């Protein structure tokens, strides 16, 4: 009897808590919190599955090709244009302040520390995250993921782990390429408008840069890669049924990844300011 009354009281307490939650938290907030919880669980499962054999090495290499090599043209073009535009926009102001000699330092540091990683990550979020979201979403809708599951394959390991790992590995490489091309773009403008030789321009940039600029910027790109792969996979893997579900998965993957990239960037800058004294 006592046990029953405890259960009954427990039920009531739970109901009150539910009502309380219903009153205090609007739907959208509750949905967002639920989604954050689900994404965290998904991330936890990724680490668990990534460390357990068998490893899908061939699929991982295939994804490195798709995520890395196939994004190269986009990254090269955007990186080059960022370099050109940054130099063209900054040059008149620097001349006004008589600081045109500091152009390489300003451009080098801003590209390596911030613009290169963030813009490359945003561009990749648009291409990679939405691509993964749409691909896995359509696989979910057409029951291909279920077919993998019933054939005894772990679809999480085959589809999610390989894509997230490839994204983690490829994004830093893409950022390095993007930085190099951006710097070349700005050097080109300096060479044409300021008559500065390429050698002098790059020597000045490398003198201005230190490891405290390079290392934190490079470390955060691994986290950017993780976010891009993880959110794309999360949205696609749990895509709702129907073609509309695939569209929503691709769209929300980009939105959520972009938001997450800025949060990671803020945290990374905050931490690197503490540890690297920049």
């Amino acid at each position, binding site marked *: 009897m006592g046990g029953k009354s405890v259960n009954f009281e427990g039920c009531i307490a739970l109901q009150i808590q539910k009502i309380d939650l219903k009153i205090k938290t609007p739907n959208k907030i509750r949905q967002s919190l639920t989604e954050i919880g689900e994404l965290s669980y998904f991330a936890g499962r990724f680490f668990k599955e990534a460390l357990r054999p068998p490893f899908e090495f061939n699929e991982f290499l295939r994804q490195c090709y798709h995520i890395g090599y196939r994004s190269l043209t986009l990254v090269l073009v955007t990186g080059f244009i960022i370099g050109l535009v940054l130099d063209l926009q900054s040059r008149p102001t620097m001349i006004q302040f008589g600081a045109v000699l500091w152009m390489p330092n300003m451009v080098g540091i801003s590209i390596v520390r911030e613009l290169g990683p963030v813009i490359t990550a945003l561009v990749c979020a648009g291409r990679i995250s939405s691509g993964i979201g749409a691909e896995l979403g359509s*696989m979910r809708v*057409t*029951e*291909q993921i*279920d*077919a*993998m*599951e*019933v*054939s*005894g*394959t*772990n679809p999480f390991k085959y589809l999610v782990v390989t894509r997230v790992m490839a994204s983690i590995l490829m994004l830093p490489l893409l950022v390095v390429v993007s930085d190099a091309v951006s710097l070349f773009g700005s050097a080109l403008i300096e060479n044409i408008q300021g008559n500065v030789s390429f050698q002098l321009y790059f020597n000045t940039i490398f003198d201005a840069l230190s490891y405290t600029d390079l290392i934190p910027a490079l470390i955060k790109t691994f986290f950017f890669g993780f976010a891009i792969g993880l959110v794309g996979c999360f949205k696609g893997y749990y895509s709702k049924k129907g073609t509309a579900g695939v569209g929503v998965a691709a769209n929300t993957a980009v939105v959520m990844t972009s938001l997450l990239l800025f949060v990671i960037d803020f945290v990374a800058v905050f931490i690197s300011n503490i540890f690297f004294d920049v």
Partner: protein
Amino acid sequence: MKNQKNIDVMEQAKDQKEVIIEIKDLYKSFGDHKVLDGFHMELYKGENLVVMGKSGSGKSVMIKCLVGLMQPDSGYISVLGNEIKKLDRETLDVLRSDIGFLFQGSALYDSMTVRENLEFPMRRHKEKFGEIKDTTPLVMDALESVGLASTIDLMPEELSGGMQRRIALARTLILQPKIILYDEPTTGLDPITSKEIIELMRNIQIKYGTSSLIITHDVDCARVISDRMILLVDGINYAEGKYTDLIQSNDPKIEAFFKK
């Protein structure tokens, strides 16, 4: 000769009533909507059991619970003597190699060729096949069983709906399953292709000696292929028996299934 032997073994097993799938008191709800409300069934070795029901009656949910794709709210499911709920992931995966599943929409991996589609489940079950250096003979054998050996290097998008369904069937066969689950095998196909698929299902059963659980609302398919039928209405077994018996029923709910 081998086919005749398979037929004899199947007839013998059916007579002995060796149960290979058992479901008891299966319940599944989505929110307030009850889909399965105490469903139960048994599939005997060598038998073709057809489960018929209207769209949304819970047929696909039941079959997905059977292979662990969905968790029931409560109930007992046993396949080849293994209670699904108690199996860990690895044991379930090994058991799944004995269960072929033909999906309603074929579910071929569209980024892979036909050959890769068929090879994909094989490399997951090395315990069954060992280290195979050349998978071509096995792939060709499965493709020949469905009459599509020439499509080996094609992509799924290059195949018609009927061909995709056949390739999906070949993919389930390659693991040499003991049971094949068909989820609406003829849905979305024209009548001629549907007949071809039904004929193929019969031939496969004779050639490989498999047992089949067929989920459908296609009366022709049920008539041709079923040894026994279950009519699923409101989440329960509304009626059970042979096609010839059920078709004579005067119950309006049963009549509704067979009305042309």
